[in-house]
């Protein structure tokens, strides 16, 4: 793009972001502004850098497979009075644990989750689904096949992630070998 085109694209991009109610995908932006997806993403990146460099009161947040304007955390404290946002209730540790299993194992069935957690998780799953964090694959209504749970775009939004690939790598959380050994020792000591 030549500089003039680029300036116009930036201006149009600002307008699109300003009127979007939800995070908007680069595909949709490319369709609206008649750009290739690559160019749309490049424009988003340039604009995003521009705001950061000039220390504005907002930034372009990459979240739930889309882009939107948001106010950075350091300013949100100033705004507590305006936004009056009552945050949704905090998830319990059982709910978070179940959510983690669905996030990393999706699509995953109810009984697989119960196997991993060692307890029936129906109630927690129902509540997580009611909160909109997970959903069942409704495109698969064959009798006898179990329901498979997956995370929703709202889950990504609540965690501030752009895509599932941004989830922290689960391997990193595998217990260190000394913990594993300690566990093994206390479990099986004296059994042979």
């Amino acid at each position, binding site marked *: 793009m030549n500089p003039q085109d680029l300036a116009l694209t930036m201006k149009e991009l600002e307008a699109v972001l300003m009127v979007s109610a939800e995070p908007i995908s680069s595909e949709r932006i490319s369709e609206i502004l008649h750009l290739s997806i690559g160019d749309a993403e490049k424009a988003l990146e340039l604009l995003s850098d521009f705001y950061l460099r000039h220390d504005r009161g907002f930034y372009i947040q990459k*979240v739930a497979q889309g882009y939107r304007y948001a106010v950075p955390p350091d300013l949100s404290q100033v705004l507590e009075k305006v936004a009056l946002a009552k945050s949704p209730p905090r998830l319990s540790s059982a709910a978070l644990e179940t959510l983690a299993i669905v996030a990393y194992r999706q699509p995953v069935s109810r009984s697989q989750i119960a196997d991993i957690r060692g*307890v029936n998780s129906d*109630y927690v799953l129902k509540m997580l689904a*009611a909160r909109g964090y997970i959903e069942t694959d409704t495109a698969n209504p064959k009798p006898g096949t179990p329901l498979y749970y997956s995370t929703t775009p709202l889950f990504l939004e609540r965690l501030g992630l752009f895509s599932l690939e941004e989830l922290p790598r689960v391997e990193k959380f595998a217990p260190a070998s000394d913990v594993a050994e*300690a*566990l093994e020792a206390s479990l099986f000591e004296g059994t042979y």
Partner: protein
Amino acid sequence: MSYEVEAEGYKGPIGLLLSLITSQKVDLWELSVSGLVDDYLNELERMRVLDLEIATEFLVVASTLLELKCRRLFPSQYSGDLDEDFAFFEERDLLLARLLEIKTYRDVSGVFLELIDKAAKSLPHAGMLDEPYASMMPDLLLGITPERLANSLARFAIPELGDFVDTSHLPEHPVSISQVARDLVLKLIDIRQCSFETLMVQASTRFEVVVGFLAVLELYRQARILINQENSLGEIVIEWIAEEFSTDELDEFLENSGFHLAE
């Protein structure tokens, strides 16, 4: 809000107990499981309202403790039977793998909490098109049925205690159990071999599928059919191998299997 344990040799939140034992800071020999249970029951009494999370957490920890303690109390020895020993080692490794897996998810869920807290601090801008552009947009309620609207209230629809029993999920025209079973048997005798799915192709309710499946199990028990499923969740293939039923035999089968009861 985790439950505080006050047992001989140990005092603290029960969630910590397991990790303390695994790091060998509490000696399992010293821990009295019965004392722990008594203490817990007293606490429940005091709470008046059962807290499910505390209750289930306790059950998981207490049963793990019991298992640990049992294993330690029994003298160690090889059974002399190699197969049995292998089975034991396999079971042992599975248990360890499961404990490590759940610990992994528990640890990573802490990061989820941090991410959620952090994300909640970024306030989103929600934009909107003004007129005349707003009315150019296609209708947003397109494809939204009254049922979907009602369903979106699901997370507020907490049934009140002592409320009436909701029977709206029951079919308005009850299906005859013996009729479903009879149709299934006749169809099977006719086709000889087919998948369970094909067999149930006309079933319009979950209820009919369940009845059909029970009928299939009963036929299998009586060695009138063979059932084959190649892999988990794969196709269930059913083959008729017995003599055919006479009408009387069929009635007898339905009666003996209890399929006539709900007429």
